[in-house]
């Protein structure tokens, strides 16, 4: 049971029970879908921008405690950040989950228990991976627009 207590740290349990910005938002600039077809987890991320910053980040949906808590931490960590900073944070979180990088954020460290449960990597990175892909595409198209 010790390992399980590590997996479901208090931070994860708390984020699961009272997730950050867990509500649908009408009229968000972007609605990003993070789905895991294998387990049926489905989240929608509602994103708004202001001056190249993520000014609003809410989410809603259904998923296990790990995927829900990690999406909650995502919303909390990325709101207010510039697109490029947000991308760096996404990369850091995913690398951390894969055991490739250390992190300093306490909220991130709460997911270290996932290292012992490789079958749960997907849960921890579900929304983060979608967000990373989305940000990369968005930054790329912005750069192209600047060039042309």
């Amino acid at each position, binding site marked *: *049971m010790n*390992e*399980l207590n590590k*997996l*479901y740290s208090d931070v994860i*349990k708390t984020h699961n029970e009272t997730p950050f910005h867990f509500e649908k938002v009408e009229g968000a600039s972007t609605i990003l879908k993070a789905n895991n*077809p*294998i*387990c*049926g*987890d*489905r989240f929608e991320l509602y994103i708004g921008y202001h001056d190249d910053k993520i000014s609003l980040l809410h989410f809603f949906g*259904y*998923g*296990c*405690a*790990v*995927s*829900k808590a990690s999406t909650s931490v995502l919303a909390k960590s990325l709101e207010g950040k510039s697109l490029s900073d947000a991308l760096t944070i996404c990369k850091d979180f995913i690398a951390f989950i894969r055991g490739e990088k250390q992190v300093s954020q306490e909220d991130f460290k709460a997911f270290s228990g996932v290292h012992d*449960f490789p079958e*749960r990597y997907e*849960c921890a990175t579900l929304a983060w991976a979608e967000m990373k892909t989305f940000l990369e595409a968005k930054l790329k198209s912005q750069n192209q627009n600047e060039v042309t």
Partner: protein
Amino acid sequence: MALSIKNIKSLFPIFTHRPDLVYLDNASTSQKPQSVIRTVNDFYERENASVHRGLYELSTEATRKYEGVRKKVSQLLDTDNPLSIAFTKGTTESINLVAQGFVRKQLSPGDNIVISSMEHHANLIPWQQVCKQTGAFLKIIPITAQGELRLKEIESIVDSRTKLVAITHISNVLGTINPISEIIALAHKKQVPVMVDAAQSAGHHPISVKEWDADFVAFSAHKMFGPMGTGVLCSKPEFWPQIDPLLFGGGAIKNVTFEKTDFQDYPYKLEAGTAHVPGVIGLGAAVDFIQSLDLQEASNHTHDLCIYFKQKLLSLGTAELLGSPTNFGSIASFQMEKIHPHDVASFLAQANIAVRAGHHCAQPLLESMGVPATVRVSLAIYNTREDVDKTIEALMSLKKFWLR
């Protein structure tokens, strides 16, 4: 004399190596008895040769054993002709063979194929794809909230443009046992052939292809104590000439010139390339193992155990079963109040209890029942009341762990 169900666990080496394992994911794959493992091992150690090829003793012996399995399987399925049995790599390949090699050439735009809403993706996607390729469409037999087919609707759903009905014998999510004979009789009244997905029933429940009058039956060896990567397509003789191979190559031929190839007859024309001989011979050993049991007794044992599990689960007061079919096998899907199925499965895994969580390759079924995912418990002959008790105990501590 039939083997005693009571001591059967000892015949499965995995439980010797992992005495604490409570394995309740039998609908995914069953564990293998020593006899099957030894047969596969012995083949590679003592008998390895390709079949239908060499003129030496080893190859002759391998061929004899390989061909002998057709007879064993035909006895298990209660069908007259061993040549009805074609070896494939599993249920999925068998269904794809019928979809692409038999049904596709008969389909025109506006034709239809009938399946049910409780099908595993393996008995859904092959039909969906062949419809996409031909302009035909799928018609779905709906189910009740209890998780049973709406039988009365079949008569109007199967129409003059239906080319095939494909239906599961036992639902891999709900455990529902479908009345196959009745469905086949309804379809045959309209001259429509029926394919039965027996992945969850073969080797666990008595089956009679003859009594069913089924046209095609598919199953996998690995779900009935046999090796992975081997399966069966059983077809009625009248369809043999009409089933085209999907794989072309060595074996499976009568005569080859640069201009054309004459293929062998069914089932050999479907078995091009080097066969998975140890898999097939291992399947034979699995059938021997099953025949050494009283299959009705085995089926009663897992069914009783499933009832026991369902009762205990409901008495927790925090679990809800998905569906409540009257006629069910040894599979139960459920949800725990406020706790996601994955978190339930992870918790149980810590207590050495293996269950499945998710949509169990039946996403449309779960969606139609308004459920994103479930925990699934599926039982086999080696499971005991003790296994169920341990699981219920773990679910009780789960409640304490999560609901702070």
